[in-house]
């Protein structure tokens, strides 16, 4: 194992090898923290050889230069300088992505008017509106994943952020797929452009990101036009359908029964109608759309990363986890008490800022700690170094937000004491806290364990900061007791003969089936259906609780019903079922056609057959 010291002295290490070592260290949370600590005292300016191409864009006619020197800054005073000295540092590296990324992590400089314009709109949003949008967004995003006992937290957070931005700006629901694909490409593209490209070569990432953001730009511009004026029947219909969706959003009721979104107007609509025309806003339609795309791009990935990082951190030990769960419970109860939970989230983000790195380019020769960075060099800001510095590089978990934490998310524009201003933070934090709270409150929330090592599967990050996946599990049966089972069985050939036989079996067997199912007392519904010209027989059922926990009984008690059916089914298990329940269960499992997308609705999701029977005993039986 190469030691930091040898590495920094480049002792016996070739540049390519050094590049690999650095990537390994930056990719590992613990190792990265150690590295920052070491850099702070020994080498505040780390120079390494990049593998990236110096051309900003494919179309540039400059020559490619590989092996450029790149500088990693990780001390807060240096990072603050890079963020706040527009004369020395630019955020030009973002330009490779096009479409509004000039809005990202920007302080001062040429684009201040655009920032101010966007800021005015974002700041006009009331906290109650943001909270309600966050609730509605999580509710929408959680529908599918929470039908299963295992879900991917990164995806859940991503979906909530997408829904939130969709509602906030006034995209149509059908635009969700576009938002999703463009933002996935953009998030990866951003992270590649910021850090990945210096270590790995994946030339497909940037064009994909540009393409995705271009498509979103196109959609945003179209909606801005549509909201201003509808030309022709088609556009009128489109607006009508968007209006119908907006009506649903406005009708959203929170837990107190209030409708905090009753007067809500999505931002695209407001920008379009309030400015009236391009000239009135001072921006062309494209420019407006660019600002919108920039805002969305700057939010989704950060929300997704923040949620995943926070929960991952809370699972560091049982005490922190219980503390977080308790804070989540309190926040849920009084509605306003989210500060404690928010403090915990800040504590987690200080150890691992969601935007772990930012890119800058030097405009002039810059002197850092007595060492020179030539003009035109790429500089990477290791934000985690700066946030760790405040706690003297201790990786201990300390809740609460400090002014120097502006390097996690910037402070609100104009707020004193923050080195970096972020126009989205008053939007993002409530959303992040809400998602974190809802996830923590899931019954039986737990990490998934690797069966071989017994180690929990933790948050997976690419290049140390692009959040990929974080599988979690919860007790789904506490919120949804029933499950569907759809056994699709292929009828033996000749189909005409065997289908007829099956119909007979079901006909004469019906009384027995009825009795068995009634006695089972945990099957809600069951019926048979022939599909595809009688070539397949489907048994549909809805039953209570866990397939695995009750299937043995099902096989031993109800399995015998299948003995006659299976005589006419292809690839039937060995019979009789009572003698081979295991094989029967395997067959049922294999032939089960799960619902599309895992979606399953129940009007009485927490009620079981036995409960219904108990409640209606006097009237019924």
């Amino acid at each position, binding site marked *: 194992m190469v030691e930091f010291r040898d590495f920094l002295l480049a002792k016996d290490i070739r540049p390519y090898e050094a590049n690999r070592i650095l990537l390994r260290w930056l990719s590992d949370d613990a190792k990265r923290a150690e590295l920052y600590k070491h850099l702070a005292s020994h080498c505040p300016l780390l120079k390494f050889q990049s593998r990236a191409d110096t051309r900003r864009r494919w179309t540039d006619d400059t020559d490619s230069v590989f092996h450029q020197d790149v500088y990693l800054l990780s001390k807060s005073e240096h990072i603050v300088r890079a963020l706040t000295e527009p004369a020395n540092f630019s955020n030009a590296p973002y330009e490779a992505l096009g479409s509004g990324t000039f809005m990202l992590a920007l302080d001062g400089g040429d684009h201040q008017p655009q920032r101010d314009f966007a800021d005015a709109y974002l700041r006009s949003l009331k906290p109650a509106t943001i909270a309600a949008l966050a609730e509605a967004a999580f509710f929408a995003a959680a529908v599918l994943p929470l039908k299963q006992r295992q879900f991917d937290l990164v995806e859940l957070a991503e979906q909530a952020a997408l829904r939130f931005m969709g509602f906030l700006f006034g995209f149509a629901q059908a635009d969700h797929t576009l938002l999703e694909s463009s933002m996935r490409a953009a998030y990866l593209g951003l992270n590649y452009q910021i850090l990945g490209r210096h270590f790995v070569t994946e030339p497909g990432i940037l064009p994909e990101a540009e393409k995705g953001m271009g498509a979103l730009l196109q959609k945003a511009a179209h909606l801005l036009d549509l909201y201003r004026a509808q030309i022709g029947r088609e556009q009128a219909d489109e607006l009508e359908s968007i209006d119908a969706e907006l009506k649903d959003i406005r009708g959203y009721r929170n837990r107190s029964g209030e409708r905090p979104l009753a007067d809500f107007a999505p931002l695209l609509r407001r920008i379009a109608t309030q400015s009236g025309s391009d000239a009135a806003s001072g921006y062309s339609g494209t420019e407006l759309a660019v600002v919108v795309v920039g805002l969305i791009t700057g939010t989704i990935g950060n929300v997704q990363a923040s949620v995943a990082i926070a929960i991952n951190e809370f699972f560091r030990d*049982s005490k922190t986890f219980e503390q977080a769960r308790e804070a989540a419970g309190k926040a849920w109860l009084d509605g306003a008490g989210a500060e404690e939970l928010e403090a915990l989230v800040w504590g987690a983000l200080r150890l691992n800022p969601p935007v772990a790195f930012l890119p800058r380019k030097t405009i002039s020769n810059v002197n850092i700690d007595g060492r020179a960075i030539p003009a035109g060099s790429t500089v990477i800001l290791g934000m985690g170094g700066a946030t760790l510095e405040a706690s003297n590089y201790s990786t201990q978990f300390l809740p609460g937000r400090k002014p120097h934490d502006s390097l996690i998310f910037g402070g609100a524009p104009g707020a004193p004491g923050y080195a970096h201003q972020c126009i989205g933070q008053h939007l993002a934090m409530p959303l992040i806290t809400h998602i974190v709270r809802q996830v923590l409150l899931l019954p039986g929330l737990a990490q998934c*364990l690797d069966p071989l090592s017994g180690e929990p599967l933790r948050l997976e990050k690419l290049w140390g900061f692009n959040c990929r996946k974080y599988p979690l599990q919860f007790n789904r049966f*506490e919120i949804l007791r029933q499950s569907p089972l759809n056994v699709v069985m292929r009828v033996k050939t000749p189909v005409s003969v065997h289908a007829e036989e099956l119909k007979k079996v079901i006909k004469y067997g019906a009384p027995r089936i009825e009795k068995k199912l009634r006695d*089972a007392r945990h099957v809600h519904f069951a019926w048979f259906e022939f599909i595809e010209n009688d070539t397949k027989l489907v048994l549909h059922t809805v039953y209570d*609780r866990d397939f695995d*926990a009750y299937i*043995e*009984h099902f096989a031993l008690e109800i399995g015998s019903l299948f003995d006659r059916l299976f005589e006419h089914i292809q690839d039937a298990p060995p019979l009789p079922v009572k003698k081979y329940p295991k*094989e029967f269960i395997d067959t049922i499992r294999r032939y089960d056609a799960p619902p599309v997308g895992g979606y399953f609705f129940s009007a009485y999701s927490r009620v079981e057959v036995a409960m219904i029977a108990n409640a209606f005993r006097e009237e019924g039986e």
Partner: protein
Amino acid sequence: MTAAAEFKQKADVQRLVTYAYDQNCSRHFVLEVKHAANARAFLAGLLDLGLITGASADSADVAARKSRGCCPANIGFTYRGLQKLQLPLPYLLVFREKAAAFAEGAGPRAAQRLADTGASAAEWWDACFRPDRAHVLLSFYADGQGELEGFTLALRQIPGADGLDGWGAALDGCHLGADKDRRTVHFGLRDGISNPRINGFHAGKPEAQSKQPDPHAAGEFVLGYPNDKEFNPWLLLNPGPAPNPWLLPTARIDAAFFRNGSFAALRKIEQDEAEFRKFVSAWATRLGVGEEYVRAKLAGRWDDGSVVRPDEEAAPAQAPAYAQEAPPKQDERLNDFDFSDDPQGRGCPFGAHIRRMNPRADGIVPFRRRPLMRRGMPYGPRFDAAPEQKRGLLGLFFCASLEDQFEHLLAQWGDANPMGPDNCGNAKDPLIGRHEDAHTVFDIPLRGERLRQLDGFRPFTTTRGTLYAFYPGLSALRTIASSGAPVR
């Protein structure tokens, strides 16, 4: 009633599966196989010396062993342990197919199947329960610490003991109190009142009119025999696809390997008695009742062990005829009841610990008894003696199906309400439940339509670890000892 014929291969079954040792202390070693051949030599040594006790040994045999300095001992293996000991793959495949929980191990299943989340989550269990370390579970019983230490030394002298690691970290349990008829566990609950009886091992029903449940079929505990449902899952061995001759050494599977074996779960449960007492005392004050009343409603039994009867407000004056000996004395307060005279839960609430863990004649859906043989012992001192020390239960639970018995009890009956009984409360098992939501309620139905409801539950227990072990029959132990490569 005629006694069922004695179980023919009793001598092959490990004694702990079917009978308890009437001793005061226990010691469990969770060992890691460091060197397979040596570990197998150690196992062979244990067998040669006759240290593994079979079910045909009676208490006189146990006493005779002890006079020679030998504690009665039994041994089980985790799936990873069997792998490490190089049990041929076809046998492992049979476990994979027929005992998925055992093959997977407790840790990865803990959240969903054992309700171990939060502070009880498997990733925070004690290190000895880690799947890459927990391979062999060696347990023995004695009347005092000295005997345990002496026997430990003797065990470590057996050739091959160095092939196993973990001798330094024993899990010791000890009954609270010396009076064998008055044993309690922490939280002040009476211990050792009821254990299932097995046909061929225990006497049948004492009397025809007894409400004590019928003895169980051997297959509920011992592999290779029909269970209560008259089904024998271990009769037909189907190890899945034929072993690939290119990859694997072929070995014929001998069904006898599994016969007379059993599965067990070792579960270390830490008990927070201070928190439990605080809860009980707060509710006693609030309801204007005695603390014993609250404890009894939560557990289902009064402090003296007698079941709470409908509309009873205090423990009966006459203590039940409590005794450890077998067959147990018939007493309708201890064991000869089935809740049929308490259909509304006005005595023992539906949510009470004993009614969940053993619903007896209650209309459970689907109706199926899910018996467990309990061989646990408390660890740590009584709360009053040393409140600040750790304490809890070293539970050891035997059954033939970890999924359908052990896991079903914890997840389906403890963490959720058992399906069927009309329990309108939504709290989890009040004593062992992982209470996450302090707003769930525990219903105490009273005469008429009246109801007392308790809430504010917090977890009173934390799981410190669970492992699943296979306890082979004695002849199968020989097979394990002789599998793999010869000792070098």
